[in-house]
């Protein structure tokens, strides 16, 4: 398949692995903060291609994993209203809240539908004018422009029965929070899809302020291995900078038009990240002009405070302080079939990918 096979060429992969082996003269720890990277790394068996002195750890880049439990409770409470259809990304269906998962809500009679985009939820709204359609908007800069454009479209068309339960987050503040927490890493594999929108300049602070290596990379095996090699070289030469390996998709300035849409519809706010706490400007809220599309304002829901303490250590895993096997629930009480924590739910969650792939090594 064009644009894919070139980046999975075994010869190129073997040569990159050889160069990494030759140049990796000490121990290195790099963190990837994109769930897509976590999944690709394990799916292609990248750890089995790296020398043992290079450790790749996963950060908070799975949107499902960092979504606060209260959000899921709000979502299921809204879904239980008569005449409401909740449109969600498939990953969310099995995420447990205190009131159960959206899947449980559906089994109990709520109208919860899986969609592939915000736009599809808007289509549902057009086709069902008698129902209220609530789109569950999660994700980082990658999915936010799509939500923004859809809200603008809904306004243009005067669609009254569409709203958004927003939990969009922005990535750089979370990466900075991890560094402030004192997680010991030598550099970041920066999120490729986020950078398509934000540009690599959003990650400049990593090198400038913290003196760490940073490479924006794609999702194919040669992309990831090239990024590891570039990171090793940055560390070895003590010249940290933000390099773009993923130049076929990422520029320094990013997608200016998408940024503009985001700025029109959303504004920065402080928000809770599961595992990281409340991060200043770590999230986005719907701007006043579009407030009527905000489902949190449109629906009044009564959510009980969580009562039982969950020994799940998703938070530490998301900060890169612990790995999944450190958790007392991992692979026993918490499995992909019966996830206790969000990191086990999504295909991009650290625990899920670790459970599926990692025990090979």
């Amino acid at each position, binding site marked *: 398949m064009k644009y894919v096979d070139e980046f999975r060429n075994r010869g190129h*992969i073997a040569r990159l692995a050889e160069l990494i082996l030759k140049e990796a003269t000490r121990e290195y720890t790099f963190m990837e903060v994109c769930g897509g990277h976590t999944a690709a790394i394990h799916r292609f*068996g990248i750890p089995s291609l790296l020398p043992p002195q290079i450790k790749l750890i996963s950060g908070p880049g799975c949107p499902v994993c960092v979504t606060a439990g209260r959000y899921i409770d709000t979502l299921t409470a809204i879904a239980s209203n008569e005449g409401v259809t909740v449109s969600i990304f498939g990953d969310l269906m099995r995420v447990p809240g205190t009131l159960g998962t959206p899947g449980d809500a559906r089994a109990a009679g709520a109208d919860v539908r899986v969609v592939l985009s915000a736009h599809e939820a808007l289509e549902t709204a057009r086709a069902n004018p008698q129902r209220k359609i609530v789109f569950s908007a999660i994700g980082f800069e990658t999915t936010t422009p799509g939500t923004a454009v859809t809200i603008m479209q809904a306004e243009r068309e005067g669609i009254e029965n569409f709203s958004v339960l927003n939990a969009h987050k922005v990535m750089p503040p979370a990466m900075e929070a991890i560094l402030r927490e004192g997680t010991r890493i030598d550099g970041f594999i920066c999120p490729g899809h986020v950078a398509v929108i934000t540009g690599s300049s959003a990650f400049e602070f990593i090198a400038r302020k913290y003196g760490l290596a940073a490479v924006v990379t794609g999702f194919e*095996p040669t992309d990831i291995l090239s990024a590891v090699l570039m990171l090793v070289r940055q560390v070895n030469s003590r010249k940290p900078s933000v390099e773009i390996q993923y130049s076929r998709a990422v520029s320094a300035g990013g997608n200016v038009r998408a940024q503009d849409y985001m700025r029109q519809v959303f504004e920065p706010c402080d928000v809770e990240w599961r595992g990281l706490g409340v991060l200043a400007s770590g999230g986005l809220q719907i701007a006043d002009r579009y407030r009527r599309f905000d489902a949190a304002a449109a629906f009044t829901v009564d959510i009980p405070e969580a009562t039982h303490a969950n020994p799940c250590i998703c938070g530490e895993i998301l900060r890169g302080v612990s790995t999944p096997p450190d958790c007392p629930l991992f692979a026993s009480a918490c499995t992909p079939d019966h996830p206790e924590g969000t990191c086990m739910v999504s295909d991009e969650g650290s625990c899920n990918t670790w459970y599926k792939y990692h025990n090979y090594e």
Partner: protein
Amino acid sequence: MSEKISLSHGSGGRQAQALIHDLFAARFGMKLPMTDSALLRVPPGIIAFTTDSYVVNPLFFPGGNIGKLAVCGTVNDLAVSGAEPKYLSAAFIIEEGFDIDELGLIVSSMADEAEAAGVSIVTGDTKVVEKGQCDRIFINTSGVGILKDELMHISSGSSVMPGDRLIINGPPGDHAVTILASRRNFSFDTPMASDCASLNRLIEKVTVKPGAVHFMRDLTRGGLAAVLNELAVMARCGITIDESSVPVKEAVRGLCEILGFDPLTLASEGRVLIVADEGEAEGIVQRMHADPQGSGASIIGEITSGREGRVILKSTAGGSRFLEMPSGQLLPRIC
């Protein structure tokens, strides 16, 4: 406007009799008068007996419809056990208001597929439920086949041994991707069609030397990943497969890349995994190539003695990892 199914079509009265005689019995070539049970004389051997229900959405899709699927699915369950499929039952649960012309198309597809596979539909049932009590039409088929003693080992995998080769008859996942694409109105540069097909003619060619085949299973829900994991546990062996030797169509790969699916977990309705003796595998692949359902046959891996119960995938990148049993619901109602 065409005629619709009403509750009276399931009542046992005149409308029901007319539907049974004019549609089901006529198209399926059932013998009249109808009796409460089909009475079947069976040749000597072991009876293989299976049942499956079909609830696919949409009912009609490129490459087939719920009726064709209901015949091939049950024929294949018998055939992969090593049995020769002989007789099927067909039971319909139909929602009030369902279009009789559409029912006719579905029943015709069933009759055509049964004829092509050489099986007879010998008994059946029709129930009509009120609007909203089911989604248009659900079909159950049960099937009876005759199994020779020398093929008894195939369904349990009891003769699987290290060194055996793994063969599949074509690219997996076409059915799941076709269903998904029809639901979402995706289109492809090269049109996709479901792989839904009866495999018993192909399997006859594969089992001419009964001892050469050690295991067979069709790659339905859970895809190749599920079947390999079941086999590794059941036969207490390890399995190694080479991702780059599994043929996957461009359109399937493309959609999987976009949506984050693994083609190895996608369902097919006309694909089979065959585990064959090391020395016989090439010959079996050659014989499969002579059948329209086996033209894409290839060897994709082998049975190993280490890592009992686990499936190891050599990735396209040259790395290795476990191929896990898929979990959760990837795509609902695809069969």
